[in-house]
């Protein structure tokens, strides 16, 4: 997995590419937590290049949302592939995380 980062003013957009499973979820989580600790409050996880996620990756999304929520920030997910969207739905994360069709809409949602 690689993570690409881009910025739209105060919104940081993270675009992980490849797979997030139990082998790399911890490093993704550490990276995101470090960003929050460094002061980032508005995050978008753009999922268009995420080919696969297991519960380990869902856990990172949940932890990120909780951390940001506790710090007065916001998280939105953008553009999941169909298989990833299905897993978000089954896990019940679609009802508690904002999921938008594209990064632009997600960026607006965390403003």
């Amino acid at each position, binding site marked *: 997995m690689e993570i690409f980062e881009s910025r739209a003013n105060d919104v940081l957009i993270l675009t992980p590419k490849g797979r997030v*499973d139990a082998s790399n979820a911890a490093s993704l989580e550490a990276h995101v937590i470090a960003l929050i600790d460094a002061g980032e409050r508005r995050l978008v996880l753009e999922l268009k290049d995420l080919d696969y996620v297991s519960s380990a990756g869902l856990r990172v999304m949940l932890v990120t949302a909780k951390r940001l929520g506790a710090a007065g920030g916001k998280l939105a997910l953008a553009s999941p592939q169909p298989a990833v969207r299905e897993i978000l739905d089954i*896990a019940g994360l679609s009802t508690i995380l904002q999921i938008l069709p594209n990064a632009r809409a997600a960026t607006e949602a965390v403003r």
Partner: protein
Amino acid sequence: LRPIGHAERIAGVASAHAALRLKNRLSELERLGQFIAEFGADHGLATKAISELQLAIDELVTNVISYAYADAGEHGIDVRLTADGGEVTVEVEDDGQPFDPLTAPEPDVDAPIEERQIGGLGIHLVRQVTDRLEYRRVGGKNVVVVHKNAAKSR
């Protein structure tokens, strides 16, 4: 690289097998996913079902690697796939401590975010994307059997 396997035709019913031995390392999960994808493509399984099988077997193997072993040594985890028409059976066998993953409590996936549990999602996902699960302890090994209809819809 093709998985070890063979196809046989008995009384007009095609049945195919493939087997993979993984080490108890999380870095093996990607190879597991590729193995299932290739098996699914070779045997004409539905795309959505292949994704769901990848998820289910990943979760089971992740559990084994993370929790089954009392020592830090190397262990083998066997994954055996069978496709009989669109009916897929997967066996995951490990030599870890006795553990029945089917007894894991269900997480509340309707709870609000503040009360949402961080763990416990894995086995929930396995249950949701498979048709039937079995567990048995045989000869000092844990065997979880997954059944799933993976036929393409007509």
